[in-house]
C-alpha cells in the first residue's frame, strides 16, 4: 500500500510538468475555469464555476470546528459553567453571519453564481502520461457555493445558532457535569460536518460530512449513555445509517469509475451530456452504470433521511436531548438525503428508475409514518414520525420532478418542525420528562406557558397546513400539485393528499390534548438522565429541576409538583422561530398571482444544479383543473377536515387528560398494529437480527470447537511433554548428579564403541588408535 502511494507520488512528480498544460486545458482545473470565465465562454455550463467568493467563506465550516476545539478544551479543563454554550452560540452565529455574507455574494446582481473556495489540497493523485490514459484523482478541501448550498446553509447555521441558545437553558441541569461541554463539542462538530456535507465541492468531502453528521448523531442520541435505551437507539441509528452509507459509497466509487472525477465543477458538465440524451427522450442510450449511480445515492439518502425501509432509527433517535432532536433529527441532518437528491437532480433525470424510486419511497413513507404517528401517545415520538412523514413529502416532491417544492418544503419544515420539537422539549423540560399526551392537558392555561403554547400552535398550523397563512401549506401544496401534474405519478398525489389529512389530524390531536382542555397534568417519573444527573437533582433548585431531576419529582415531590415555566432563552428562541415561520411564507410562494415560480426558494433552486429542466411531460389535469389548483383545494379540504376531526375527538367535551372521545372509536387490530408501529421493528428483528444472531452463535460454536480446538491441540502437545519431563526434576541433588554421571558414561561408552569399529570390532579396546594417533614425540 505504502509502495503504491510512493509510486503514485513519484509519478505525480514526473508527470507534473507534462500535466501543467493538460490541467489548464482538457481537465480544466479552477485556473481553467477562471480562464473560461474571463473569456466569457462556458459560463452557462451545468454546475460550472461562474464566480468567486472571498476567503472568509471558509469561516462557515471552520468557525464551528473552532468552537468544537474550544469546547473540547473546556471539557479537558473541566469547565463547569455555561462557557461552552457561549462559545458555541458565538461560533455558529459567526458561521451564520458568514453564510449570509456568502449568500449576498452568491446572489449578486439578481442571478445566482457558483463559486469554489479552496481551503487546501486534500487528496491529489495524478498518474499515467499525457499520451497514455492520463488519470487524476483530486478531492480538495474546498467548498462549492451555489444557491442550493446557500439555501441549505442559511437554515442549518441559523437554526443551529437558535437551538444552541435554547440548549444552553435546556441542558442547564448538566452544567455541573462533564456532559455540558461534551454536548457542545458534538454540537459544533455536527455543524462543521453538515457544512462539509452541504458545501463540499466533491463527493468525497460530502461523504466525509455525511459520516461526520452520522457520528455526531450517534454521539448525541447516546448522550445519556448510562441509559440502555439511549445506547440502543444510538447504535440502531448508526447501523441503519451504515447500510445507507454503503449505497452512497458505492455510488461515489461508480461515479469516479465512470466519470473520472468526483469534483462537482468537473462532474456536472459531464453529466450534462447524458442529460441532453435524457431530455431528447433517448434515455435508453444512457449506460447502465450512469443509471445505477443515482439509485445507489438513493439508498444513502433513504438511510440518512429515514425513508422506507431504513426509517426505523429516527423515532428511536428521540432518546437524545430534545435540542438534538430538533436540530439534527428534524431540521438539518435528516434533510441531507434530500440535499443529495436535489444536488444530483440532473443525474437522477438520467436514470429511468431513480426518480420513481425516490417518489414512491417518499410517498409510502409519508403515509406509513403518518398512520403510525396517529396512534402514538409520546408527543416527541409523534413529532418524530411526522418528521419521517414530512421527509417522505420532500422526497416525493423531488421524485415527481418538483425539486423546487421539495427544497422549499425542506426550508419551511426546518423552521416549524424545529419549533414543534423545541416546544415539546420545553414541555418535557417543565414537566419533568413527561411526554405522554394522556397525562398532560391544558398547558396553555398555565401561567408562563403562553409563548410555548403560541409557538406550538404556530408549528401545528404549519405542519397541518392551515391554508394561506402558513408556509407549510404553500410548500406542501407545491409538492402535491407537482405530483398531480406529473402524469405517471397521480397515485402519489392522492397518497400525499390523504397523508396531508392524517397529518392535520395527528398534529392537532397533540395540540388539543396537551395544550387545550382542562388543566391537568402529571409529572414525568422517567429519569431522562444518567446517574450523574440524578445526583445533581439533590441540589436542584426548583427553577432548574429539569427532566434530569425527574427522579426527585417522581418520588419525593410527586404530590407537590408544579411545572416550571421555560426561561428567557427558550422563550426567546421560540418567539424568533414563530416569527420566522411566518416570515418565510413569501419566500416559498409567489403571491404575484398565476401560481408562477418567481419566488425566492424557486430562484435558489433554479440557480443551482437542481435547477435543470426536467424532460417535458404532458401535464395531467385532474378533473379538468390545473393540477396545482386542484391540489390546493384538495389540501385545504383534507387539512381542515383533519383539524375539525381532531377538534371534535380531542377537545370538545373532554374532561380529563387521560380520556377523549377518540377512545370510543375501536378499530381493533388496526389500532393495535398502528400503536405498535405496524410491527416493523419486530419484523426487522425476525428477518434480519434473529438469523444473524443464530448465525453468530453457529460461528461462535465453530470458533470454539474447531478453531480453538486446533489451537489448543498445538498447546497440549508441549504441555504433555512438559508434564512428563517435569517428573525428572526432583530437586534432589543426587538425582541430578547421577544423571550427569550416567550421561557421561553413555557418551564415553558411545565414543569407545564407535572407535572400536562398531559391532564388528566389539571386544577390543577402542582407545588404542587414539593413543597411537596421539603420537610419540621423538
Amino acid at each position, binding site marked *: 500500500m505504502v509502495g503504491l502511494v510512493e509510486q503514485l507520488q513519484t509519478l505525480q512528480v514526473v508527470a507534473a510538468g507534462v500535466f501543467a498544460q493538460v490541467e489548464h486545458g482538457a481537465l480544466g482545473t479552477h485556473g481553467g475555469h477562471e480562464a473560461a470565465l474571463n473569456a466569457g465562454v462556458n459560463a452557462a455550463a451545468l454546475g460550472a464555476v461562474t464566480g468567486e467568493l472571498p476567503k472568509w467563506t471558509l469561516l462557515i465550516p471552520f468557525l464551528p470546528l473552532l468552537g468544537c476545539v474550544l469546547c473540547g478544551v473546556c471539557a479537558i479543563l473541566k469547565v463547569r459553567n455555561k462557557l461552552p454554550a457561549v462559545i458555541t452560540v458565538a461560533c455558529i452565529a459567526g458561521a451564520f453571519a458568514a453564510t449570509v455574507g456568502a449568500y449576498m455574494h452568491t446572489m449578486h446582481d439578481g442571478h445566482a453564481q457558483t463559486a469554489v473556495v479552496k481551503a487546501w489540497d486534500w487528496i491529489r493523485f495524478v498518474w499515467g502520461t499525457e499520451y497514455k490514459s492520463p488519470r487524476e484523482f483530486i478531492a480538495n478541501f474546498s467548498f462549492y457555493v451555489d444557491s442550493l448550498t446557500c439555501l441549505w446553509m442559511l437554515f442549518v447555521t441559523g437554526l443551529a445558532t437558535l437551538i444552541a441558545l435554547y440548549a444552553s437553558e435546556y441542558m442547564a441541569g448538566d452544567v455541573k457535569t462533564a456532559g455540558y461541554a461534551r454536548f457542545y463539542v458534538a454540537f459544533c462538530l455536527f455543524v462543521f460536518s453538515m457544512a462539509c456535507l452541504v458545501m463540499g465541492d466533491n463527493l468525497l468531502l460530502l461523504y466525509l460530512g455525511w459520516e461526520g453528521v452520522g457520528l455526531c448523531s450517534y454521539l448525541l442520541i447516546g448522550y445519556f449513555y448510562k441509559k440502555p435505551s439511549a445506547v440502543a437507539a444510538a447504535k440502531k441509528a448508526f447501523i441503519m445509517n451504515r447500510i445507507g452509507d454503503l449505497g452512497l459509497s458505492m455510488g461515489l466509487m461508480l461515479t469516479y469509475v465512470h466519470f473520472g472525477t468526483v469534483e462537482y465543477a468537473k462532474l456536472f458538465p459531464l453529466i450534462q451530456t447524458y442529460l441532453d440524451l435524457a431530455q431528447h427522450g433517448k434515455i435508453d442510450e444512457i449506460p447502465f452504470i450512469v443509471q445505477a449511480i443515482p439509485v445507489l445515492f438513493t439508498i444513502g439518502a433513504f438511510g440518512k433521511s429515514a425513508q422506507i425501509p431504513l426509517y426505523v432509527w429516527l423515532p428511536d433517535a428521540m432518546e437524545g436531548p430534545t435540542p438534538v432532536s430538533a436540530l439534527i433529527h428534524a431540521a438539518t441532518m435528516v434533510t441531507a438525503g434530500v440535499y443529495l437528491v436535489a444536488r444530483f437532480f440532473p443525474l437522477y433525470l438520467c436514470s429511468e428508475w431513480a426518480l420513481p424510486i425516490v417518489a414512491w419511497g417518499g410517498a409510502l413513507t409519508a403515509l406509513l409514518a403518518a398512520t403510525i404517528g396517529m396512534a402514538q401517545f409520546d408527543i416527541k415520538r409523534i413529532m418524530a414520525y411526522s418528521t419521517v412523514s414530512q421527509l417522505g413529502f420532500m422526497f416525493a416532491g423531488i421524485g415527481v420532478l418538483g425539486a423546487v417544492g421539495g427544497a422549499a418544503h425542506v426550508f419551511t419544515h426546518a423552521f416549524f418542525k424545529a419549533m414543534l420539537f423545541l416546544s415539546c422539549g420545553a414541555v418535557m423540560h417543565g414537566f419533568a420528562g413527561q411526554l405522554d399526551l394522556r397525562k398532560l392537558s391544558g398547558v396553555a392555561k398555565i401561567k408562563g406557558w403562553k409563548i410555548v403554547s403560541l409557538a406550538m400552535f404556530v408549528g401545528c398550523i404549519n405542519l397541518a397546513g392551515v391554508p394561506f397563512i402558513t408556509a407549510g401549506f404553500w410548500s406542501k401544496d407545491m409538492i402535491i400539485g407537482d405530483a398531480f401534474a406529473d402524469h405517471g405519478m397521480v397515485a402519489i398525489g392522492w397518497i400525499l393528499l390523504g397523508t396531508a389529512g392524517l397529518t392535520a389530524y395527528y398534529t392537532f390531536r397533540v395540540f388539543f390534548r396537551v395544550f387545550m382542555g382542562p388543566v391537568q397534568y402529571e409529572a414525568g417519573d422517567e429519569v431522562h438522565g444518567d446517574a450523574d444527573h440524578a445526583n445533581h437533582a439533590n441540589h436542584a433548585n426548583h427553577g432548574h429541576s429539569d427532566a434530569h431531576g425527574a427522579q426527585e419529582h417522581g418520588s419525593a415531590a410527586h404530590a407537590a409538583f408544579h411545572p416550571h415555566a421555560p426561561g428567557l432563552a427558550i422563550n426567546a428562541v421560540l418567539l424568533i422561530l414563530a416569527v420566522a415561520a411566518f416570515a418565510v411564507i413569501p419566500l416559498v410562494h409567489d403571491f404575484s398571482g398565476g401560481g408562477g415560480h418567481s419566488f425566492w426558494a424557486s430562484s435558489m433552486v433554479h440557480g443551482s444544479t437542481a435547477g435543470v429542466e426536467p424532460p417535458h411531460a404532458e401535464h395531467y389535469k385532474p378533473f379538468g383543473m390545473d393540477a396545482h389548483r386542484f391540489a390546493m383545494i384538495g389540501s385545504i379540504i383534507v387539512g381542515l377536515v383533519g383539524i375539525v376531526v381532531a377538534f371534535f375527538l380531542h377537545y370538545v367535551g373532554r374532561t380529563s387528560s387521560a380520556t377523549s372521545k377518540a377512545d370510543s372509536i375501536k378499530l381493533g387490530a388496526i389500532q393495535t398494529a398502528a400503536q405498535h408501529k405496524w410491527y416493523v421493528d419486530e419484523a426487522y428483528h425476525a428477518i434480519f437480527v434473529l438469523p444473524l444472531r443464530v448465525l453468530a452463535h453457529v460461528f461462535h460454536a465453530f470458533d470454539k470447537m474447531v478453531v480453538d480446538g486446533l489451537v489448543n491441540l498445538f498447546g497440549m502437545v508441549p504441555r504433555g511433554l512438559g508434564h512428563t*519431563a*517435569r*517428573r*525428572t*526434576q*526432583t*530437586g*534432589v*541433588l*543426587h538425582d541430578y*548428579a*547421577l544423571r550427569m*554421571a550416567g550421561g557421561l558414561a553413555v557418551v564415553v561408552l558411545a565414543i569407545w564403541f564407535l572407535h572400536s569399529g562398531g559391532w564388528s570390532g566389539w571386544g577390543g*579396546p577402542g*582407545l*588404542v588408535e587414539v*593413543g*597411537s594417533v*596421539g603420537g*610419540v*614425540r621423538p
Partner: protein
Amino acid sequence: MNVLLDGLTLAQGGFPEPMASATLYHYLMTSGMLFVIGLIGFVTRRNLIIMFLCTELMFQAAGIALIAFSRFHLNHTGESFVVFVLTIAAAEAALALALVVLLFRRKESLDAAEWAEMRG
C-alpha cells in the same frame, strides 16, 4: 595392548629414577580412578561436606590428567592451567564451605536431600 604400552613407554625428558617405569598410562589411570572415586562419593554420600570433598577429588583428578598430558607433550600449558585451577579451587572451597555453613544454619542438618526446593 602391546602397541599401546609401547607407545606410552616413554617418559620423555626422563622421570626420576624410582619412578622411571611410570608412564602416562599410569598417571591417567590414577586420574581416572580418582575421578571415579570422587564421583561415586558424590553420588552416594548425603553429607554436604563430604560431597564437597568429593568434588575436590574430581577436581584434582582432572588436574593430574592435565599435568600428565602436559608432561607427555612437553608443553607447559597444562601445568600453568593447573596452577590457576588450584588457586581458583582454593577460593571456591572457601565460598563453598561458607555456603555449607549457611545451609546448615537454615536447617540444622547437612543432609543434601533436605534441599529439594527446585522440584518440578
